[in-house]
């Protein structure tokens, strides 16, 4: 007889083979992980025909093997104890139907527990399901019992349960081999509906049959070789003298007892009855033993199955009376303690006997961790980074260890993650609450019990993120293939079942497949998935996180290896210098605004739905939100970081909405009047803004305007289809409401002198604009039918009738040219713009040009008028010359020069000259730079672009300059946010928070309608749309929105939320810099030291076993590092770097 050293599970496999097993099905887990491969191994070695399969779960495996038995073959199924819970339904029922071929169930219990969820005693199935149970004490005996189980099962046509404990499964022992039994029986199912398809009535009959079978088995057990009594290593013989103590033992404790009693030298004093057939209970074996001893101690694992079946309870000690602990494994130490306690009480052992020696070192057990390079680590890290506050239900597998990374909160049983997530969602939803839930489940576990759970979640409209951790294997139990593999356990072909097809088949609409090794992308996808759960028509979002188990590939492929190095700490670590700072930075929109508006601030109020504060924020800078929202060329949108992502935030439309909707909101109380008088000359946008700001500061302001009404270009230049006059009037009324005096029809230099103003006012602000029309300087310019652009616009804005019709040419390329052309079109003219340069160089706003073209204005580029031809003192035509592009001019624009001989004539009824205006400074008696103290200038008098926004900016700056001039530095008006100058770029924004999404389309009236009159072309968006745009699309660059993400991300809970914002508890802060790293909008400033600060963040929340802490610094353990490179992404201080040398 040969022998070999085998693991307990392999010994069982050997027993199955020796018992003639023909079919075996299992789901991985102890003991199946080694039994099934063991059967396979012996099949190959012995040349046997055994069908072996890894089934999708234990219930399936049970039924597969059972069917073979129904067909007359010997079949076995192995599973962990919790697996038998899953398969309990067929277990209970199959006891009634019985079997044909021998049918053996092997299920292992886990006293301890060491590797599973419960310390249940599966021998209770013997009482509950009435299945005969065999309980081995060693691997060798487990092998014998497996063999016997087939025989017993077949003889009584009943399933038999072989129940080892984990300690036997993972024990290794010299095993004596017997030859295998070569079964050659063929499948032959005998129909018998009363048995195989029994209805309840026939079940009764089957139950009666079962009782008869059990009675017979009990009889057989009473003479079984698996039940025996022993004393001092020899069979116990009847003696006249009873023993003070006898022990009834089952399972591995029997072996422990034998060694222990021998070591303690009391094996001749205490007899042992070993019961290997727990159910049905062999009473006739037990009865004489019990009567022969004064006291009985029962030792069995993990519960009290034998003890409970004993009839004479008075003399029995065990778990029920507390002599034996109710929990945990009966290790040699525990058994020794029990023996000594009982032995001393009964006087078998003297008091002093046997004190253990030994050196005690209190070192905690090392907890298991995910392997270096484990893809689950990458996935968990990303999940937690994405939503630290989420609830994380998880499942059974290696990834249970995600709890070390703070990304697993709940573990229950196979497949529960999905149901727990669904249930949590429903429980919260019931109260109107929403909490992010990110569930994780392994690929194999998803197959096992996740599919019905997912269907249920979809059907009942649950919403959560499910991450299927697909590492292409059943890793924890030893790399068994999943149903997604095309390889069967015996390397034969299997049909691969696609997880993604299954997921879609469950009704999932959101599915992404991603390699978690790309951590940033994984974070981004998790956030996107969460957004899907929040959408109106959203649901469960599934991510398949796919990367092969690192144990499967053993090591990183050479080309993917990343050798990392941890940079040494900086020379000094000063918390005060290195700590995180909450400081608002300058968003590009703010920087771009010539009017100095804090764009982000008003968008932020709007986002919060606080219209009042949003209006007030703009009104702190200038009085024209409605006007600006319509006519500004919005450089803010040009600069907007969002433009680099999808489209810029529709800032102009939002400002307009705020201005229009909040127009009636009263101004915040202005300061108390100080009585100081200031004159403003020119009631255009610059002058009015200056007057407004001065009035807010408490000054008594008097505006002098030459025209009949104030407003300047806003009133007389910009056509009403762009700026309706009532909108302007409303905003001017607000200025007036501050007590600003306005005198119209007063031209300084004509009706009042500058000196007089200087005498009567403490300061004077000059903003008289640019009104002097530039001339073409060509022949025929003074003919009838030749007009100035501004004159036409002014006439239209004043409602004057103008006699102009037919074909009109407009000379120029600025906004005035476009405005005039569009106005003339509305008046029935056919208009052509002649511009001497190209389209790109045209100073008019692009959008205006497009609109003009759309409305029907024609534009000729690279043409210049040479002279205007007359007929009867009136214009007849214009002669033009074609231009060609030449060198760059001093102004950075390309020069043009005429092409000789390219002159041509166009017949026209009128020509409008719109080539610009310049300031008329004739009322001054000096140059601008010679003005006396106390006189300030703004608007178009300044060398700056002639835009409304620039005018507003200069008006405000002028007011502040006057304030400072008159009152010194004190008392400057403060704005909402104090910002550091450092500008925020798109790189500072965490784009994963911002799904790409177009800005709202801005409504306009039809072109046809537009061309028919002066109705406003551009319409506004609703306040609700505006709020949505501000809340969802604005990045709020560099500005804290109190999103709490830093607070919930901080691994040390060092961030405190107070009334005034966040505060850092420096005692807790470890300088890990995660907060600065995770801020979605770059609002936390913290230097990156690019050296290890010893914060331990990488060890805590990445928890790679190859990162170790030595003294004050993290280090790479080269002996275990597999160079996956994942940690490079993890360190927020940038200390972990790829070592490229």
């Amino acid at each position: 007889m040969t022998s070999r050293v085998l693991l307990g599970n392999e010994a069982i496999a050997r027993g199955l083979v020796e018992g003639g097993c023909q079919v075996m099905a299992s789901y991985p887990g102890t003991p199946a992980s080694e039994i099934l491969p063991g059967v396979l191994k012996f099949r190959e070695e012995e040349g046997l025909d055994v069908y072996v399969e890894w089934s999708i779960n234990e219930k399936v495996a049970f039924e597969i093997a059972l069917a073979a038995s129904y067909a007359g073959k010997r079949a076995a199924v192995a599973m962990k104890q919790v697996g038998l819970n899953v398969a309990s339904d067929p277990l209970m029922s199959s006891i009634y139907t019985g079997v044909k071929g021998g049918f053996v169930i092997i299920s292992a219990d886990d006293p301890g527990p060491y590797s599973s969820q419960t310390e249940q005693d599966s021998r209770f199935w013997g009482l509950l399901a009435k299945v005969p149970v065999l309980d081995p004490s060693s691997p060798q005996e487990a092998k014998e019992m497996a063999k016997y189980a087939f025989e017993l099962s077949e003889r009584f046509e009943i399933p038999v349960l072989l129940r080892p404990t984990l300690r036997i499964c993972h024990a290794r022992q010299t095993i004596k081999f017997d030859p295998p039994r070569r079964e050659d029986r063929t499948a032959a199912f005998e129909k018998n509906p009363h048995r195989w398809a029994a209805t309840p009535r026939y079940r009764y009959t089957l139950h009666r049959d079962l009782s008869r079978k059990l009675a017979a088995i009990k009889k057989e057990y009473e003479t079984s070789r698996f039940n025996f009594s022993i004393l001092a290593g020899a069979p116990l013989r009847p003696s006249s003298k009873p023993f003070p103590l006898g022990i009834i033992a089952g399972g591995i404790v029997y072996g422990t007892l034998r060694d222990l009693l021998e070591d303690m030298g009391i094996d001749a004093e205490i007899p042992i009855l070993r019961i290997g057939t727990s159910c049905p209970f062999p009473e006739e074996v037990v009865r004489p033993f019990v009567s022969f001893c004064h006291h009985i101690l029962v030792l069995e694992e993990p519960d009290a199955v034998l003890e409970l079946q004993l009839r004479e309870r008075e003399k029995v000690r065990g778990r029920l009376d507390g002599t034996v602990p109710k929990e945990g494994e009966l290790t040699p130490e525990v058994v020794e303690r029990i023996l000594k306690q009982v032995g001393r009480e009964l006087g078998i052992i003297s008091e002093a006997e046997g004190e253990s020696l030994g050196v005690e070192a209190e070192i905690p057990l090392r907890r298991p961790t995910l392997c270096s390079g484990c893809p689950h680590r990458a996935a968990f890290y990303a999940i937690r980074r994405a939503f630290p506050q989420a609830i994380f239900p998880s499942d059974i597998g290696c990834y249970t260890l995600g709890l070390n990374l703070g990304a697993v909160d709940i573990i229950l049983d196979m497949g529960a993650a999905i149901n727990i997530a669904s249930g949590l969602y429903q429980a919260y939803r019931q109260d109107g609450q929403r909490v992010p839930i990110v569930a994780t489940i392994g690929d194999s576990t998803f197959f096992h019990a996740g599919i019905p759970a997912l269907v249920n979640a979809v059907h009942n409209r649950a919403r959560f993120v499910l991450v299927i951790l697909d590492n292409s294997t059943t890793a924890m139990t030893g790399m068994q293939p999943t149903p997604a593999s095309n390889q069967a356990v015996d390397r034969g072909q299997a049909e691969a079942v696609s997880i993604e097809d299954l997921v879609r088949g469950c009704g999932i609409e959101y599915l992404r497949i991603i390699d978690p090794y790309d951590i940033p992308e994984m974070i981004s996808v998790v956030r996107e998935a969460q957004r899907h759960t929040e959408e109106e028509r959203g649901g469960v979002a599934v991510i398949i996180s796919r990367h092969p188990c690192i144990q499967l590939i053993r090591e990183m492929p050479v080309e993917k290896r990343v050798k990392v190095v941890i940079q040494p700490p900086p020379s000094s670590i000063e918390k005060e210098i290195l700590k995180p700072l909450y400081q608002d930075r300058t968003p590009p929109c703010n920087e771009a605004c010539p009017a100095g508006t804090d764009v982000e601030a008003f968008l932020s109020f709007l986002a919060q739905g606080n219209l009042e504060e949003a209006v007030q924020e703009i009104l702190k800078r200038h009085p024209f939100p409605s006007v600006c929202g319509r006519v500004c060329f919005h450089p803010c949108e040009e600069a907007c970081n969002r433009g680099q992502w999808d489209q810029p935030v529709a800032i102009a439309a939002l400002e307009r909405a705020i201005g229009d909707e909040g127009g009636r909101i009263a101004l915040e109380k202005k300061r108390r009047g100080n009585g100081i008088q200031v004159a403003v000359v020119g009631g255009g946008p610059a002058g009015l803004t200056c007057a407004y700001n001065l009035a807010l500061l408490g000054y008594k302001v008097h505006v002098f305007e030459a025209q009949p009404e104030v407003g300047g270009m806003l009133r007389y230049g910009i056509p009403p289809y762009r700026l309706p006059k009532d909108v302007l009037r409303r905003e001017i009324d607000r200025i007036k409401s501050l007590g600003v005096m306005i005198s119209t029809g007063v031209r300084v230099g004509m009706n009042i002198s500058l000196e007089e103003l200087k005498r009567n006012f403490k300061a004077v602000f000059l903003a008289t604009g640019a009104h002097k029309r530039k001339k073409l300087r060509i022949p025929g310019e003074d003919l009838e039918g030749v007009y100035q652009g501004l004159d036409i616009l002014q006439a239209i804005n004043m409602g004057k009738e103008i006699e102009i019709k037919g074909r009109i040419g407009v000379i120029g390329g600025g906004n005035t040219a476009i405005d005039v052309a569009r106005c003339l079109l509305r008046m029935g003219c056919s208009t052509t713009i002649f511009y001497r340069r190209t389209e790109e160089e045209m100073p008019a706003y692009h959008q205006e040009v497009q609109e003009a073209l759309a409305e029907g204005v024609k534009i000729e580029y690279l043409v210049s008028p040479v002279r205007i031809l007359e007929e009867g003192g009136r214009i007849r035509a214009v002669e033009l010359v074609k231009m060609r592009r030449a060198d760059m001019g001093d102004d950075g624009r390309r020069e043009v020069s005429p092409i000789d001989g390219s002159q041509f004539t166009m017949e026209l009824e009128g020509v409008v000259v719109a080539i610009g205006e310049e300031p008329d400074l004739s009322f001054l008696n000096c140059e601008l730079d010679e003005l006396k103290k106390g006189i300030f200038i703004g608007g178009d008098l300044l060398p700056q672009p002639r835009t409304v926004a620039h005018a507003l900016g200069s008006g405000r700056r002028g007011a502040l300059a006057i304030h400072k001039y008159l009152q010194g530095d004190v008392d400057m008006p403060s704005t909402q946010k104090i910002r550091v100058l450092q500008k925020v770029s798109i790189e500072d924004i965490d784009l994963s928070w911002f799904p790409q999404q177009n800005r709202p389309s801005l409504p306009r009236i039809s072109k046809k309608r537009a061309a028919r009159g002066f109705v406003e072309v551009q319409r506004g968006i609703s306040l609700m749309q505006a709020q949505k745009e501000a809340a969802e699309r604005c990045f709020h660059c560099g500005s804290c929105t109190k999103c709490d993400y830093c607070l919930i991300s901080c691994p040390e809970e060092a961030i405190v939320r107070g009334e005034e914002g966040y505060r850092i508890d420096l005692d807790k802060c470890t300088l890990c810099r995660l907060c600065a790293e995770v801020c979605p909008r770059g609002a936390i400033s913290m230097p990156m030291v690019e050296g290890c600060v010893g914060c331990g963040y990488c060890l805590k929340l990445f928890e790679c076993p190859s990162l170790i802490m030595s003294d004050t610094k993290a280090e790479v353990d080269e002996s275990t590092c597999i160079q996956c490179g994942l940690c490079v992404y993890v360190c927020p201080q940038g200390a972990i770097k790829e070592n490229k040398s």
Partner: protein
Amino acid sequence: MKLKIIFAGVGGQGVLFATRIFYELAHSKGELVYGSETHGMSQRGGSVVSHLKIGHYHSPLVGKATADILFGFQKEEGLRNLSMLRKGGAAIINSPEQLPYQEEGEITLYILDADELARRIGNPLAVNLVLIGYGISTDRIPFSYEEVREITSRLTPSHLQEANLRALEVGFSSAGH
């Protein structure tokens, strides 16, 4: 022969392989073996302990304070299991420094920086074999270096032969240094 050995280390260190060398060796010499191993999740970097009893025994577990030999493939794991040693037992522990338990427990400590040696021969994963080689050199184990070498060779896949045997040798010849 009667011998009880504890192998203690961390998942991934090859504790099971080390155990296997000894039970296969004992088996090949006609001895009975019985022992217990850690399988499952702890193999993912957690504490891993093997018990091995050579000779006629009824239980796979080594009781506290009864082991003859302790292999500690990692310092902490070795220290934690010191209490498994009987009076007069020997601990062979991989540690970069001497350990403070030497005087207290009537046991002998053999300390070797096996990590460093394994690194030095470019085989950082062979700490288990380096320490076994060292253990054999202490004369506390009733197997010869040649026997251990032969079994190791038999159990090692061909592409690792040279590296594994070199590790064993380095450990064995490190004695006295």
